[in-house]
């Protein structure tokens, strides 16, 4: 038996989480370093996956399969395709930065008693989320995926509700109430989505008799599994609902601004750049693969919802006064693009969407973490409390600008490639939809540049005077992310090479072919 690489990649952070939680109360710093080391180790394992993955090989690689709960038809089955391996790499890559950025976010206050160990808890929960997210990208058993999809809510919930911005800590009752409201809203939205998916998961078992993706695919191929049209549609809706909440798609998005606004910046990155990707990933892997006919049936509605997400999210982002909520609404807009790309059902659209998941993760992480550094200096999330920062802290302002430009998809930075691919993919199938979607790009320029202008340019506000520039730790977070944005913006080929074969598989699942380019014959 070969080395179980996939299990190891998920098991390392899981074990690390337990070890971090067990560090004695006084050894706070040790817990931080342990968490950082574990996340770096996971990054190495993720990189090995990336290297060992053969783009031209079988659909699912590095597979593992063990008996688990035979009675439920459940096996512990893992395997990665190009999409999975790219997202695992993204997750493993972002984690060290998240941990580094949140280095001081959970230091205990004087008022806490000695048995309350927030630091250990904070880093243990982050690692627990990492473990579950990675395993959910690897799961090729629907039940296993479902379990992780639900279980990761619990550590996320504690991360959002238990740890706020430092500015508010120390008994600010109102902030604590808001935070706990945001956490509960996050959990309830996702739990309801998950429970509806549970009904569909059970329904799938009744229809198919197994949870294994490969077995279901085989049964479908040889005709032994023939879902009635209505059954397939209901099951599809059950699955899609859960993923649409997680992604989040308008009108199920309202938990995201609350959650991202109240959580600390690293946790907000965890939500939007990592955990939410599970939703869009699952649309590609489960909705399209398990229910191809129903997916095509639902496409028009989903495209409209995605369009609304793009435009509505962007419009609301323009109107925000709170930096973190602004980034949250921008994310909703971007998730609209991703979902649009997935359901355009063209190769370019889906490749673009997958690439977008990775790029959005990196660019949002860069923007959000710099915003977090900014907020931690002044203790306010309101845009109006800032002004002229670039004169006081030029490096901070510069990196913030680059993160912002990546968010608005400036050519040369990574998100541009993916957004372009999505739009091309959508245009070739649904030209009108593509045209409307471009509105999102225009609005993105508006909200990013206005944000930059209000906070960084202009006369130096009194409250900003004397603001220190980025420290070494913070630079260590930001610089690699920006370097990656530039690299993938100029040379996205390594990623697309891995992603494309997987997208081809998905396209053949739904039996869709790219529309032929139509050239008007010149007379």
């Amino acid at each position, binding site marked *: 038996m070969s080395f179980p690489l996939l299990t190891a990649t998920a098991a390392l952070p899981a074990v690390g989480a337990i070890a971090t939680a067990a560090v004695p109360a006084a050894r706070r710093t040790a817990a931080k370093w342990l968490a950082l080391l574990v996340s770096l180790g996971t990054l190495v394992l993720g990189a090995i996956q990336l290297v060992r993955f053969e783009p031209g090989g079988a659909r699912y690689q590095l597979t593992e399969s063990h008996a688990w709960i035979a009675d439920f038809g459940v096996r512990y089955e893992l395997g990665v395709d190009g999409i999975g391996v790219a997202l695992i790499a993204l997750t493993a890559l972002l984690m060290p930065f998240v941990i580094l950025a949140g280095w001081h976010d959970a230091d205990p206050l004087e008022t806490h*008693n000695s*048995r*309350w160990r927030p630091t250990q808890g904070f880093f243990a929960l982050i690692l627990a989320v990492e473990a579950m997210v990675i395993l959910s990208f690897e799961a090729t058993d629907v039940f296993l995926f479902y379990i992780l999809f639900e279980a990761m809510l*619990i550590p996320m919930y504690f991360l959002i509700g238990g740890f706020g911005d430092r500015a508010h800590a120390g008994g600010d009752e109102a902030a604590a109430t808001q935070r706990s409201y945001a956490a509960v809203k996050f959990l309830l939205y996702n*739990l309801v989505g998950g429970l509806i998916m549970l009904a569909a998961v*059970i329904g799938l078992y009744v229809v198919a008799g197994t949870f294994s993706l490969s077995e279901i695919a085989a049964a479908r191929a040889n005709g032994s599994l023939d879902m009635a049209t209505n059954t397939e549609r209901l099951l599809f809706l059950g699955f899609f609902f859960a993923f649409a909440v997680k992604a989040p798609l308008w009108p199920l998005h309202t938990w995201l601004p609350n959650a991202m606004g109240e959580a600390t910046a690293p946790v907000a990155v965890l939500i939007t750049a990592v955990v939410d990707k599970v939703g869009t990933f699952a649309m590609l892997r489960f909705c399209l693969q398990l229910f191809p006919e129903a997916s095509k049936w639902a496409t028009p509605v989903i495209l409209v919802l995605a369009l609304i997400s793009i435009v509505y999210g962007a419009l609301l982002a323009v109107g925000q006064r709170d930096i973190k909520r602004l980034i949250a609404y921008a994310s909703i807009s971007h998730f609209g693009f991703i979902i649009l790309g997935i359901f355009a059902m063209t190769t370019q659209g889906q490749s673009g969407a997958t690439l977008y998941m990775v790029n959005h993760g990196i660019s949002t992480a860069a923007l959000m973490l710099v915003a977090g550094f900014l907020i931690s200096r002044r203790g306010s999330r309101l845009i109006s409390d800032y002004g002229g920062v670039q004169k006081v802290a030029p490096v901070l302002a510069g990196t913030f600008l680059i993160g912002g430009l990546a968010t608005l998809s400036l050519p040369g930075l990574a998100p541009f490639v993916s957004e372009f691919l999505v739009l091309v993919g959508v245009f070739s199938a649904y030209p009108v939809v593509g045209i409307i979607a471009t509105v999102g790009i225009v609005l993105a320029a508006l909200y990013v540049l206005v944000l930059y202008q209000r906070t960084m340019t202009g006369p130096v506000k009194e409250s900003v005077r004397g603001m220190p520039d980025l420290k070494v730790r913070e630079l260590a977070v930001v610089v690699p992310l920006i370097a990656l944005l530039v690299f993938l913006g100029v040379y996205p080929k390594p990623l697309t090479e891995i992603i494309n074969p997987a997208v081809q598989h998905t396209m053949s699942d739904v039996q869709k072919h790219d529309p032929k380019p139509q050239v008007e014959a010149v007379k």
Partner: protein
Amino acid sequence: MSAASVHSLWTMGADSTAKIPTPHIEYAQLSPVLIVLGAACLGVLVEAFVPRKGRYYAQVFLAVVALVASFAAIVALAAGGYGSTKAHIAAMGAVAVDGPALFLQGTILLASLVSIFTFAERRLDPEAHGNRVDSFAAQAASVPGSESEQSAVKAGFTTTEVFPLALFAVGGMLVFPAANDLLTLFIALEVFSLPLYLLCAVARRKRLMSQEAAVKYFLLGAFSSAFLLFGIALLYGYAGSVSYAKIAAVVEGSVSTIDPALADTMGNDALLLIGAAMILAGLLFKVGAVPFHMWTPDVYQGAPTPVTGFMAAATKVAAFGALLRLLYVVLPGLRWDWRPVMWAVAIVTMLGGAIVAITQTDIKRLLAYSSIAHAGFILAGVIATTPDGVSAVLFYLGGYSFVTIGAFAVVTLVRDAGGEATHLSKWAGLGRRSPLVAAVFAIFLLAFAGIPLTSGFAGKFAVFKAAAEGGAGPLVVVGVLSSAVAAFFYIRVIVLMFFSEPKADGPTVAVPSPLTMTTIGVGVAVTLVLGVAPQYFLDLANQASVFVR
């Protein structure tokens, strides 16, 4: 009167006595029940003859040994094949020895064992006059607040009678799911109910509330027993027998000979339907299903918390066992009539329990309503009418009992000057004061909410899967929606514990003896093991899912 007639009368009398056969009792197969009931009788003697100082230790020892021995007997019977191939009906048709009976009896015994540990806990309350005290009144008979009570407390009395009472209750519960005729069913019901009524009344703190709870429980319980008994009478009139097998045969129409004495009533469907409905009402009362749930919150709140945990877990297991056997053995021929009714009961139970629980402000009442909602989930599995349904219900009951006992055991730890601090507002910030206790309670709450990787999820998945396969898809959807509602109030408690600032005059967490620690530890272990690796226990439940008839 002639001499001959007298003689013949005597002769007839003599003949008929000769015709009563010696009952054939399979003592070995009934040994689990006999051990527990025998130990209960011994416990009564201990009360009478052992000096007061030694009673507590003698009783705890006796109870634990009896439960362990009884469980060992169950394991031996199951290993001997009585759960599958050798399953049969013992004691002249009165008691079934089969898979479901053994599985449920084993569950009841293990649950009772860990409950007994919480009964025996003596470190939580501060010492009264130099004596360690448990959760039970110094002298149950003395009027609350009276001088007699004070002198009893001063003298260091303790109500060690709770141990034999609990053993009697366990004995009744062991028979209840195994009862194979209606009279045995009724007797078992009374044998476990009467001690429970008493146990509810003997709380050390808040005695009036405890006595009120006991009276409520007793009155409503007596009502439900009357219903059950009336239903038994009607079914006897319908079938001419109280034996499960014979009633089932009559329901299926495979009996053609009619008992002349019952010629008017036998085979009359009205008697069958009304009788079955009344028996079901009696059983649904015991499982706490809506609309027979009214007693649950009051009794759960008023009873001493260890008793609440014991009752919530073991009674539910026993009652669902009896319900399963009745529906699957006696009334399968009637399922087109009872299934719609049970559908309705399951739906209102799930929704009612979950929705009303939202407004609760007392942790014990909250758990009571949550137990109602869970009764609804289990009913969904009962309705499946497939072997999978039986095994799913068995598995669910196993997981649920330990979560419940563990949760109530945690409730006993959180105390302020007035005893247990059960008002929810007092739990604010518990996660900051005692992270470990709060985390353990959070695990139990997550299991109740059915979050994956806990036994609650595995159980819920099993019953919903069985229900969906049994054609009850809409029931699954309702179940899933009410799970979402239920999740809200479980999470509310977690928010309160972890995200609220602790109050200055908040409760303290008492450090328990190893007894309660064992209970809670077992609860956590079972919850996680059944959540992560349930296969072995699912297999066990599968093997045990066939009723003997």
